[in-house]
């Protein structure tokens, strides 16, 4: 146990140190800090974008989902490659707009494309509200990992505090450069650990991967199909579609700094071309999750199964390495999310003109957002849990506005976009919290999106009937401050 604990805190400290090494001197301004001066090459971009995809949910959650739902876990496989194929076509336009008009955030883009500060602020507030629970999830996950392996809740809390302090420190110092540097470490250690687990766990319990699946086919054939129940075809397809739209149209605000940091659009296109192959790594925790079907009792807490099996199979030092990898999948995405949240607050919510003040508001937000998430993770871990349900279905409501914003001539007005967004969010909240069974297994985000688009179309038609055509389109609005 002491060995694991020592490795755990060494791992946390190492990630913190790597984050600091990402930059020699502190960034001079927000653009340098948030998007690395738009100078990132293919390698850095690769790890930054992979960093967003492989989080604690991927590492621990996918194994848990395969354990409880079998192949239903595969809903997470198609949406990133399909989303990236959409982004492959949008990359040049997105990058050019960002470079020309100085975007750092999603709010900057919407504000500029619709010439509406209100839309920029509304999108930023929604982004912060829906992504803050995602930040807390990473911190809670970090504590849970340590607690599961050590069996000591005090160690879990201590790891959350130290982890958060180090993430805040290196994010403030190094910005996106720090996230990129820690991402290298995270992905390498995570892949090594997953490859070891993929071989060791099925071999130990069933004599290998194919032998394991032959036993599952004989004993639990229902785990190999999508069938009636809570994870049926409707759930699978609609969840996949919502996530696909979310990735393909960059609805999560923390995806923006990484894309804006690219040196040129070719770097983005190259990454979007090859990233689907990297997505295959997702199959590794899923296969480990299947191993648990034959070993653990149904009802075992799903999120801990990867660590539980690791402890049973691996020597102590190797389990320590698994814990370090799991911690990295919490700390690195948390750092990326912090950059996304703070730049939204500094650029699109606080709205100060002085660049120096904007920079300090940004840094203050990093401390405040991480501090708040840490306190909630320790004292009220369930408070934001419901909001987490809205992270994808809520942010995806920005999809129509983002998609139409790519067009050179704006076909819809800001009022119509805001009306659609308002109704979409209302429907999602209503279906998530008040009328849970009304949409059946259809993802609430998709229903909200349908309502959003319907209102957007009606409001646009009404606008066109009541407004003279010349007032409709102003093709390229004013430049935002970089």
């Amino acid at each position, binding site marked *: 146990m002491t060995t694991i604990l020592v490795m755990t805190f060494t791992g946390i400290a190492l990630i913190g140190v790597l984050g600091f090494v990402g930059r020699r001197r502190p960034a001079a301004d927000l653009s340098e800090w948030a998007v690395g001066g738009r100078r990132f090459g293919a390698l850095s971009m690769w790890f930054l974008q992979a960093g967003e995809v492989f989080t604690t949910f991927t590492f621990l959650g996918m194994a848990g989902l395969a354990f409880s739902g079998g*192949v239903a876990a*595969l809903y997470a*496989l*198609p949406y990133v*490659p*399909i989303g*990236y*194929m959409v982004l*492959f*076509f949008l990359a040049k336009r997105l990058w050019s707009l960002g470079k020309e008009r100085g975007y750092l955030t999603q709010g900057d883009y919407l504000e500029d494309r619709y010439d509406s500060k209100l839309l920029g602020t509304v999108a930023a507030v929604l982004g912060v509200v829906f992504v803050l629970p995602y930040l807390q999830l990473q911190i809670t996950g970090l504590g849970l990992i340590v607690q599961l392996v050590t069996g000591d809740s005090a160690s879990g809390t201590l790891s959350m505090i130290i982890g958060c302090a180090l993430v805040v420190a290196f994010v403030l110092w190094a910005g996106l450069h720090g996230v990129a540097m820690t991402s290298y470490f995270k992905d390498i250690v995570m892949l090594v650990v997953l490859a070891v687990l993929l071989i060791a766990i099925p071999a130990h319990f069933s004599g290998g*991967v*194919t*032998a394991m*699946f*032959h036993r599952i*086919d004989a004993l639990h*054939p*229902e785990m*190999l*199909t*999508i069938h009636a129940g809570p994870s049926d*075809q409707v759930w*699978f*397809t609609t969840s*996949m*579609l919502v996530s696909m739209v979310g990735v393909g149209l960059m609805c999560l605000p923390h995806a923006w700094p990484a894309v804006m940091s690219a040196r040129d659009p070719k770097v983005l*296109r190259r990454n*979007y*071309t*090859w990233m*689907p*192959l990297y*997505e*295959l790594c997702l*199959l590794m925790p*899923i*296969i480990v999750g299947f191993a648990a079907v034959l070993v653990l009792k149904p009802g075992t807490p799903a999120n801990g199964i990867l660590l539980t099996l690791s402890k049973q199979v691996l020597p102590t030092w190797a389990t320590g390495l698994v814990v370090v990898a799991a911690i990295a999948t919490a700390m690195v995405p948390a750092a990326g999310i912090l950059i996304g949240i703070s730049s939204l607050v500094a650029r699109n919510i606080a709205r100060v003109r002085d660049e120096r003040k904007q920079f300090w508001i940004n840094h203050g937000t990093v401390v405040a957002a991480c501090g708040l998430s840490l306190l909630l993770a320790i004292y009220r871990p369930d408070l934001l849990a419901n909001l987490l349900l809205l992270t994808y279905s809520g942010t995806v409501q920005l999809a129509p506005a983002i998609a139409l914003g790519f067009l050179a001539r704006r076909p819809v007005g800001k009022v119509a976009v805001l009306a659609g967004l308002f109704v979409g969010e209302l429907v999602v909240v209503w279906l998530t919290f008040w009328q849970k069974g009304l949409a059946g297994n259809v993802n609430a985000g998709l229903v909200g999106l349908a309502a959003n688009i319907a209102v957007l179309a009606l409001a646009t038609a009404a606008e066109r009937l009541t407004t003279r055509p010349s007032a409709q389109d102003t093709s390229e609005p004013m430049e935002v401050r970089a």
Partner: protein
Amino acid sequence: MRPYHLIPAVPALGLVLMPFLPFVNTDGLWFGLPRMLVWGAVWCVMCTPALLLTERLMNREEAEK
């Protein structure tokens, strides 16, 4: 819209249709692995050549212009 825009639609369709194809969404194994897993992995891999081909055609068109 150019014809090469449709090339990536092929693997995308393969992935989206995964749970609806009766020979994929069924028990039994391919190569010792769940059929859905093999099908999903194959179409995931196919995304990259589809995008490479699309890029080549896009570049050729740009060069001709």
